[in-house]
């Protein structure tokens, strides 16, 4: 029972990170119907940016307060990653808009290869250990096997929840969100009605990257080490989460992320951590076979 609770806490932590990345996939897919393969590597890049800024703050500027540092790191990582994703969209995807369906996909795969190798070249191929932060534990239940929750985990879940709420507000209540949903429904019509489609799509990439940067910062914090190859697997998992939740659906992405996180953690705990990826992917395949549009996706009826 206690193990179960412990794994639940761990799974939700991991799932929060997947969920944040998954939103980027699902939003971009919703608005331009493209699988943004580079998104996982944007996430990895954001973890590096967060790490570098953290080190610069503490070492070069001598900042001592951890919470302040964390806040600055989070905001800066969001800003710089957003700029990167904006530039990527501008350079690699926008020229391909409205063309062949697979061209942007290949472009995105190329971008993904470029980003991971770029980080390798400029920051080196070795693992980057992060100085430990927020390591205190809270004991939820007593005893030697008691359930614990680290401040890190609380931070991760709290930040995720807060940002998701903010994000939800943006999408539901602001003009930007309306424009976004309009473009999702019918891009041509939206542009005829005066929605600046290019700007809306750019902003979608910016928001997706900002959320990925939150995930990247939290990932760095949680695992304490980053590497230039860290984009692929979390990226694929997050994409899986987006599909599982029903691609195009924002709550679906979060729920899918949490589910994948839980599946992975529980599988590792009770069976074998070797096959945790197999478990996550198998659940995806089985779900899709029985629920072809994911958990919360709109079923797509093909009007004949």
């Amino acid at each position: 029972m206690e193990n179960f609770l412990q794994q639940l806490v761990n799974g939700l932590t991991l799932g929060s990170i997947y969920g944040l990345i998954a939103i980027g996939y699902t939003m971009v897919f919703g608005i331009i119907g493209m699988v943004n393969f580079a998104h996982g590597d944007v996430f990895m890049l954001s973890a590096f940016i967060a790490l570098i800024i953290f080190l610069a703050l503490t070492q070069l500027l001598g900042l001592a307060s951890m919470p302040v540092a964390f806040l600055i790191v989070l905001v800066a990582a969001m800003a710089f990653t957003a700029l990167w994703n904006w530039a990527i969209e501008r350079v690699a995807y926008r020229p391909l808009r409205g063309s062949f369906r697979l061209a942007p996909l290949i472009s995105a795969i190329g971008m993904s290869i470029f980003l991971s190798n770029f980080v390798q070249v400029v920051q080196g191929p070795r693992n980057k250990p992060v100085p430990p932060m927020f390591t205190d534990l809270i004991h939820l239940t007593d005893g030697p096997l008691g359930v614990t929750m680290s401040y890190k985990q609380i931070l991760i879940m709290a930040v995720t929840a807060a940002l998701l709420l903010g994000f939800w507000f943006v999408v539901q209540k602001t003009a930007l969100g309306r424009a976004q949903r309009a473009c999702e429904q019918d891009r041509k019509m939206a542009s005829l009605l005066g929605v600046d489609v290019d700007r809306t799509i750019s902003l979608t990439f910016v928001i997706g990257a900002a959320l990925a940067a939150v995930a990247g910062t939290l990932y760095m914090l949680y695992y304490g080490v980053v590497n230039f190859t860290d984009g692929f697997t979390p990226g694929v998992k997050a994409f899986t989460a987006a599909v599982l939740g029903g691609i195009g659906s924002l709550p679906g992405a979060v729920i899918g992320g949490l589910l994948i996180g839980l599946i992975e953690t529980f599988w590792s705990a009770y069976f074998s951590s070797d096959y945790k990826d197999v478990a996550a992917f198998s659940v995806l395949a089985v779900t899709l076979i029985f629920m072809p549009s994911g958990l919360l996706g709109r079923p797509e009826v093909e009007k004949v």
Partner: protein
Amino acid sequence: MAAPLDQKRPDLSRALVDAGFAALVTFGLSFPILALRTEQDMQNRLIVEPRWSWSVIAVMVVFCARLLAGLLSDWRARALAIPGALIAVFGAHMGVTQALTHGAGITALGLALLIGAFALDARLRDAPAPVAAPRAERADRSRLISMAGLAALFLFPFVMLAWLGPQGSLKWINNYGVQILIYVMLGWGLNIVVGLAGLLDLGYVAFYAVGAYTYALLSTTFGLSFWICLPLAGVLAAFWGVILGFPVLRLRGDYLAIVTLAFGEIIRVVLINWTDFSNGYAGISSIPRVTFFGVPFTAADDGFAAMLGLEFTPIHRTIFLYFLILCLALLTNVVTLRLRALPIGRAWEALREDEIACRSLGVNTVNTKLTAFALGAMFGGFAGAFFAVRQNFVSPESFTFIESATILAIVVLGGMGSQIGVALAAVAMIGGTEILRELDFLKQIFGESFDPAQYRMLIFGLAMVVMMIWKPRGLISSRTPSIFLKKRTAVAGSLVREGRG
């Protein structure tokens, strides 16, 4: 590349503003990741050091490139001018900092390119748009070209051998010839699935792995020969194609993509972790080498060289491997071309064009997709068996997502459905990355610490983006009809659909 009218006359102030903005963005992009470098110190502590020079270089390069792009209206002129400017700057840099005598020469070369580009641009700006050559003539020519190409492919190893000798030609036949042909074959195999049937498969490498491990395991445990394992590898891969395809081919396109991707990853994870079966990360080594239908390529008395009375050299095996993969690739091509002209092949293409219309005409779409999937997988399996016999070693490392992505990129860049296009794309992408291995001379320019190999994948990724933007529909986007009444005229690429599957 038709530029809108108002862009025809470049405008210096606008180009400057544009370039300034791009430079500013580049500075923002470069700030944390380029300008600050993380490094582990003696105590394994991570420390950060400023490295502004890289950031400054990046900003300058982008500024120049953007400025030139703004000033030149024709893309050919841009393609000439931007490298020209870079070469000129590097030449000047070398001349000044390293006091190298050829610095001035390089600068002059760069400047010449730059001036040439402006001259070209001025000429092209006023030139009328070129008229496309008549189609029919082209069809005849392409037939001639493929015959000549085929002859060249068969002669290639002998020409190389005669020219460079057994030692010197090895690299060309093996690293370029065999390596490229493997990808040509994989590209042609995947082309059936993606190019003809319009199904997006992101896990093609899984079938390649199935084929490779089939030969590796059957030959090392049961001592089966390559020639028995080759068909088995194809059959097993096709079997897996059906097993995977059956449940997922009903899914909508994007879901098919993720499930195939997941399948590719599952196979890799299983190969890594199921050590009793596959020996995990360590892989399977000492896989029996290829024989000339039973005659080994060894220096022994019963070896190939002795049998023909030749002097023994390892190049014999390489040449045999070259012809083996050439024949396998050609088999793939011939079968695909033949299938295209049969009802099944036409049904694949019709499926790519409009699945609903297909169903209304009585085409069983699930079976049709399944055959495409299984056939594609089968050729992947053949290629995998060949890979294992060529390397004598397989490990999960060779079957990562990057491989699937590369093969898919070859198909898309080739122009979906075009056999020649796919072959050209394989030459460009694989040949290109092989050439990047040979850039050691750059060390003389940038100093010993510069390792060009590091930049190989970086350039590879960038090239994928650039090529897609340059030719979104691939090198050869037009489609050749499979049957005709009077005259075979190619269908323009803009009419051909890419499929939703």
